[in-house]
């Protein structure tokens, strides 16, 4: 009986501990996921490949990161705009989209660094929103363009 009481108390303690841990985890996991809390509409590399292969109207794909990266490898038919984190890059972005209808489908990408560390896509996305564009998405690149696009065997073009 004493043993049962001890076991009962222990299991009650463990149950409470487990509940605390689970509750804490429920808060921690979303916080970790919300490290990138930019609320950008995104699509995965696989989704973009599907769109580019389809017979539908293709989006305008703009690279808003490094020029050297673009020259090494870029998404076919994408255009280089420049660093979304610089005034020069934002100005080039503005010029590129100046005459486009506001419902133009646009996909931005960078791939310089891990997603949560990229300084370029968020400012570029926000700029397009500010300009009134309603159909903008960002290509979700978790690690970098090499690992998440090139090494996955997705279509690549080189040069300017």
């Amino acid at each position, binding site marked *: 009986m004493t043993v049962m009481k001890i076991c009962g108390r222990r299991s009650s303690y463990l149950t409470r501990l487990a509940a605390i841990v689970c509750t804490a985890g429920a808060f921690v996991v979303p916080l970790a996921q919300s490290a990138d809390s930019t609320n950008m509409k995104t699509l995965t590399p696989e989704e973009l490949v599907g769109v580019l292969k389809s017979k539908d109207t293709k989006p305008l794909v703009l690279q808003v990161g*490094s*020029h*050297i*990266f673009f*020259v*090494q*490898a870029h998404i076919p038919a994408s255009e280089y705009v420049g*660093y979304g*984190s610089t005034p020069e890059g934002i100005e080039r972005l503005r010029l590129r989209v100046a005459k486009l209808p506001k419902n133009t489908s646009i996909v931005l990408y960078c*791939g*310089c*660094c*891990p997603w949560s*560390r990229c*300084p*370029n896509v968020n400012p570029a996305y926000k700029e397009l929103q500010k300009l009134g564009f309603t159909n903008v998405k960002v290509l979700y690149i978790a*690690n*970098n*363009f*090499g*690992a998440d696009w*090139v090494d996955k065997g997705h279509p690549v073009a080189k040069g300017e």
Partner: protein
Amino acid sequence: MKKTSQVILTEILLLLCVVACHNSSTTGNTLRPAPDFSLTDLSGHPLHLSDYRGKVVILDFWATWCEPCKEEIPHLIDLRNRYSAQGVEVLGISMDDDDKPVRAFQQKYQMNYPVAVGTSSLADQYGGVLGLPITFVIDRQGRIAAKHIGATKAEVFETEVKKLL
């Protein structure tokens, strides 16, 4: 029954062959040479990887706009300070589009090793630099001993460097 045991024996033998082949490819000297290159560093001096033969070299591809790179560079500076007398050098290859921000960065962070602006062809020679930082640890014989993609802890570099000294 006899046929089954023969099949099993054959499969075991095949498996052993596969394991033996794998082991033979991972033993021995299979490190590939680090491609040589010729650049000009920010001080205007020629920078050739081959000039560092005999030293352990940390070849770091980075950029001024790369946040993980900024976290890693102080560790490389420290590593160089502590191990240069033993024959360790760090070479920084910036993937910025021009040298202006690189010069400012070099001064601000007091980078104590040669820094040059890289090219896309150099990046291609190293298997493509499509994410930063990418860091190669090169042994005294000029061979790539390790490659790291993304920010790497200082202890990891230190361990690898010490093994090669």
